[in-house]
């Protein structure tokens, strides 16, 4: 074997190795890409199934709330009206006891008022008919009546720029946030700001309560990528509902610094 042959052998071996590595990398790339594509398809299918499931759950809960509102209005409302008539009759029959009925009448009036407001906020048809801002006004009135914190809200007029489905979702999210503020925040003030101009919608709700570590609470854990804490389920629900309605949702909070939730249309 002369020197030329040795050189040739080295060149050929190097080329072969180069080709081998190139083919290996190519196979890796192709199979990796296929695998990724398959997994993406599976994830897509899973996502659409989950979306459908959430849609069904939302529809069912809306239907149940509608029935509940109907029941409140038709049944309990009627009973309260009957009570009111009965008291009026008693007052006519016994005018000397009229003063004794006054506190009962006041309480009965408040109960009727609260029931009417509750019935309206639960009824999605009412929200669809009266509009988002009117429904929010009703909810604010309910919150103010509870006297747990000061609600800072300036009534808004005009169209929200959202479709009916989005309005319902925004309203339910608003209810969820206000319930969370009532139950967990210990806040003294709740600020509601709405900016609806030129087809764009932005709603910011913030409180000055005890707050929480939003980054930690919403941090995905485990293989499923879901937050581990049960406390985060409400917040997760808000996020998923916003996403489903094509809205952007930002949750900002840290311990001792209250909580701020911003919902806006994707174009803003």
């Amino acid at each position, binding site marked *: 074997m002369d020197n030329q042959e040795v050189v040739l052998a080295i060149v050929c071996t190097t080329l072969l190795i*180069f080709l081998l590595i190139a083919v290996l990398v190519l196979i890796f790339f192709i199979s990796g890409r296929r695998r990724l594509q398959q997994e993406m398809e599976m994830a897509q299918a899973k996502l659409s199934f989950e979306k459908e499931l959430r849609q069904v759950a939302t529809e069912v809960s809306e239907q149940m709330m509608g029935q509940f509102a109907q029941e409140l209005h038709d049944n309990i409302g009627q009973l309260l009206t009957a009570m009111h008539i009965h008291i009026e009759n008693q007052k006519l029959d016994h005018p000397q006891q009229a003063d004794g009925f006054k506190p009962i009448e006041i309480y009965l009036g408040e109960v009727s008022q609260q029931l009417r407001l509750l019935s309206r906020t639960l009824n999605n048809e009412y929200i669809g008919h009266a509009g988002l801002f009117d429904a929010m006004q009703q909810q604010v009135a309910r919150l103010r009546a509870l006297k747990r914190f000061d609600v800072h809200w300036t009534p808004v007029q005009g169209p929200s720029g959202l479709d009916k489905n989005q309005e319902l979702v925004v309203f339910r999210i608003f209810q969820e946030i206000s319930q969370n503020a009532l139950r967990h925040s210990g806040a003294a003030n709740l600020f509601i700001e709405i900016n609806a101009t030129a087809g764009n919608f932005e709603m910011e709700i913030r409180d000055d309560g005890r707050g929480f570590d939003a980054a930690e609470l919403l941090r995905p854990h485990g293989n499923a990528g879901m937050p581990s804490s049960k406390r985060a389920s409400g917040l997760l629900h808000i996020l998923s509902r916003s996403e489903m309605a094509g809205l952007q949702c930002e949750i900002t909070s840290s311990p001792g610094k209250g909580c701020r939730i911003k919902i806006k249309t994707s174009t803003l």
Partner: protein
Amino acid sequence: MRCYMFQFVNEILSLLLVLSAGIYSGRYMNKFQCVLFIQALVWIFFFLCSYIVTGIQKHYNVQPNNQWVFNIHMLFETSLLMLAAYFYFQEKSVKATVVVVFVFFFFFYCFRIFIYGVKKFDGYIFSMQSLSIMIVYIYIMYDFYINNRFNFSSRSPEIIACIGLLLYTTCNIPFFNLLNFLNVQCPEQSRELFKIITDTSANIRYLSLALALWLIGKNTITINRRRHG
């Protein structure tokens, strides 16, 4: 002299690109990428040393021999590449395997240097180095594959750097093992082969690294821009 300069420019060009890309992306590198960049800097240092040594030897009319520089460099190169891999892996067992591979290489290196000295380039050390790097860096690529990050469209910087490194180490095994034989038997052809195989593969390796480092900066800047609207 002109040929000498051309070879120098050819070899240094890809390294300059690595340097520029490294400076561009320096802030955004993780430990793995950072050590790969440091390894390239160490190579630039040794590369310049080899030219300086050759220049000095020529100045004093001594037979030029800078092979011992590359023998020393192999230890630094392997140490840094193994350190990068050590930082890359999260699992303790895999980290331990990287350490074992390095320790095995280190003992082999010491044994060869102790027996045969440092003056002549040792092809067997290079083979052992290549084998160690192949084991560890193919595993890194496999790790990318099983974690679904082995995707050409995402232009993963780490993968690009790994491919360049693997091409360099594997393609040079046959030539470096016969380097001393060729230097004695046909020095002219040995030099030609060095240019064809080693220079080309080194250029591929460091161009890949330059591309990888540039992508790190570019990807991070793009993500930051998207985040901040």
